[in-house]
């Protein structure tokens, strides 16, 4: 057969025809689907699957049809920002992660694409039921834009068998000072005598992975921004923490190994290279899935405090639900948000699937949280609930991610210059660097012409 454009094009034409035929036949079953009453965007497969199980109940009760779309969280951010910039209607209900909040609620307050929920939260009494600090995560200039979905308290997971073998009682590791001393004395070791350290105490990123450093920053009671969004980075506590972090991650006395994520982390934990790891509730589930062979070998303890009697937990991550300001049916969107946030069956199944505890103190009495988890061999929910009330407050900012990245840069610069600096000079060096960051971010904020009066510097 003569086909002038050639064999490649002919092959592609055949492929497109076959694919179109298959897709056409498969899709015929969805042709008559009526348009939805509510459009709901989610980014977590775990959430999607649980919601899918209970949505028919809501749809039947309310007589509506809900169209739920699952997107990867990066894609969700891209789509929401495109919608925002193009000035187009948001889906009625959206779930997104806390790192995206600051950027999505920038600009004039009355143009924020989400409805402030203050009145609804007050009317239903929900406003007093959240764990401390969770509403602040989704608040700008006093407007609560999101319904918190979680608390994500952080604890330390440790290799129970290794600590027992070394005669270390985790209950004695009450402060980071004590932790570091025990780590240097008993845990960090060259077991084969070849000059290479075979066992480190804790997983800490060498480059100051912002996700992990922010756990320690928040636990130390350092808020990078205040409630009005003003930066608080030129801060002696933060400088002290950065110098401490540097000492634990660099040089001959370091106690940490950068184990990373996924298979690298699993290898580090299963091969006894790392003994402790900081885990929010959701990460315990990842450990269960990634290292099923380690069941029974991990224990959980509260984070060591920065000083005796200090806070023993932090927070890592967070999801909120938001109602679009342009929703044609905001009442129904609110009812759906309420249903998904408060339905006890859903809260229980959510915990079973993700190990995530809910943010409502009223729900913490559900029996599911007292059940012993087969992998951890302890009542995982109760352990996290015990510290959930102490989760530090973090105020959001569009510049939060930038601030953490810049702090990681300070850590890198300190690593480069540290050999020429004594302890005091290192602190001064970091303070100076933090001053620069503070000033840079203040300038960026000053350029924002749409800040309300109360948010001005």
């Amino acid at each position, binding site marked *: 057969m003569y086909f002038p454009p050639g064999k490649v094009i002919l092959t592609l034409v055949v492929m497109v025809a076959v694919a179109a035929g298959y897709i056409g036949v498969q899709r015929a079953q969805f042709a008559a689907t009526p348009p939805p009453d509510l459009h709901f965007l989610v980014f977590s497969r775990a959430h999607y699957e649980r919601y899918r199980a209970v949505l028919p109940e809501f749809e039947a009760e309310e007589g509506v049809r809900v169209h739920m779309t699952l997107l990867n969280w990066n894609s969700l951010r891209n789509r929401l920002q495109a919608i925002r910039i193009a000035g187009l209607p948001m889906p009625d209900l959206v779930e997104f992660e806390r790192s995206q909040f600051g950027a999505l609620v920038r600009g004039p307050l009355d143009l924020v694409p989400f409805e402030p929920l203050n009145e609804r939260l007050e009317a239903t009494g929900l406003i007093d039921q959240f764990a401390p600090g969770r509403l602040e995560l989704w608040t700008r200039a006093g407007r609560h834009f999101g319904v918190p979905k979680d608390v994500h308290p952080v604890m330390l997971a440790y290799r129970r068998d290794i600590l027992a073998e070394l005669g270390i009682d985790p209950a004695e590791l009450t402060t980071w000072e004590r932790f570091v001393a025990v780590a240097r004395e008993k845990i960090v070791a060259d077991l084969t005598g070849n000059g290479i350290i075979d066992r480190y105490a804790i997983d800490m990123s060498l480059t100051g992975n912002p996700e992990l450093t922010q756990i320690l920053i928040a636990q130390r009671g350092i808020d990078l921004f205040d409630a009005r969004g003003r930066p608080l980075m030129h801060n002696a506590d933060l400088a002290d923490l950065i110098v401490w972090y540097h000492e634990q991650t660099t040089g001959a006395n370091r106690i940490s190994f950068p184990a990373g994520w996924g298979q690298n982390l699993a290898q580090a934990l299963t091969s006894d290279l790392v003994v402790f790891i900081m885990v929010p509730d959701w990460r315990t589930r990842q450990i269960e899935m990634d290292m099923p062979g380690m069941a029974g070998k991990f224990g959980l303890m509260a984070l060591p405090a920065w000083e005796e009697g200090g806070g023993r937990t932090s927070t890592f*991550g967070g999801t909120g639900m938001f109602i679009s300001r342009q929703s044609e049916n905001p009442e129904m969107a609110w009812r759906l948000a309420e249903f998904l946030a408060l339905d006890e069956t859903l809260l229980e199944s959510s915990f079973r699937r993700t190990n995530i505890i809910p943010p409502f103190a009223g729900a913490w009495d559900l029996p599911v949280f007292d059940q012993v988890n087969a992998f951890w061999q302890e009542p995982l929910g109760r352990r996290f609930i015990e510290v959930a009330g102490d989760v530090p407050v973090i105020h959001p900012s569009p510049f939060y991610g930038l601030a953490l990245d810049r702090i990681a840069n300070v850590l890198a610069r300190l690593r480069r210059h540290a050999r020429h600096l004594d302890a005091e000079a290192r602190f001064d060096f970091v303070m100076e660097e933090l001053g620069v960051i503070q000033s840079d971010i203040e300038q960026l904020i000053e350029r924002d012409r749409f800040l309300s009066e109360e948010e001005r510097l």
Partner: protein
Amino acid sequence: MNLLHVALLLLLAILMGLVLAGRATAAANLARRSVLIIVSCLILSPFVWLVFATFKDPSVLNEYVFLPPFAEWSAETINLSNLRTLLAPQETVHGTYSFFLYIFNSVFLATAQTLLQVTFCSMAGFAFAVYSFRGRQALFLLVLGSMMIPPILLLAPVYRMVVNFGWMDTYFALLVPGAVGAYGIFLYRQAMMRVPKELFDAARIDGASELRIWYEIALPLVRPITGAFCLVVFLNAWNSFIAPNVFLQSTYKMPLPVILQHFVGQYENQYGVFLAGTFLAILPPACLFFYLQREFILGLTSGGVKE
């Protein structure tokens, strides 16, 4: 650094030394081949890792970097569990789908995108190469200039257009904005400029229309370029991630890269299933490449010799 590291580095240094010496001896040949084998192993190792991960049971996925020791091979450690999970009918709010639907969605989008680009880029390239008209140079510079705009900058305006045209959640949103590209126009223009104009004139004298000249004279003469261009466009469209995520809403319309990302997320990761899906996703373009490799390579090497 242990003894094995030192030995390997020493071996590598000796082999490199022999290669650099460039002596056409048997030893140098052996050295060259050894280096090539080592480098090939390094390059192929991620792919091998992917294949092994596909067939490892999730319970041992992270326990062994590659495969478990031979003594531990059993149906419990090496099996098709990841593929089974992946290919099992998936329940969504719209109904239950087979994973093959996503594969065919990707095949459709990638091939349709490629065909559209070849059609319109070759037409535009033909016009720029063959016709003389006022403003040709300026227009061509404008086309080339458009390559300097980062695609992500166009996301918001294109999104607005797509919404205004009513194309949200349809394949038009992906196919129409990507139907023509400056790179393709440039490639075809350069290729068609090398075709003797006398051929087109002869066709005109024989009564051929301009469309027929493009289809029956110009396109066959630039086939090698078409092969290479198809490869580039097909792979780009096959791996496209952001646009489908932004413009499509119904799960059953999503292509493979988007669906695969659902298996790794914020709260839980099914790495085994994700890697099995990645393995399957590699197969169609790989098969296409092997089937058409002569045409593709001809395109990639055309112009390599100075005339």
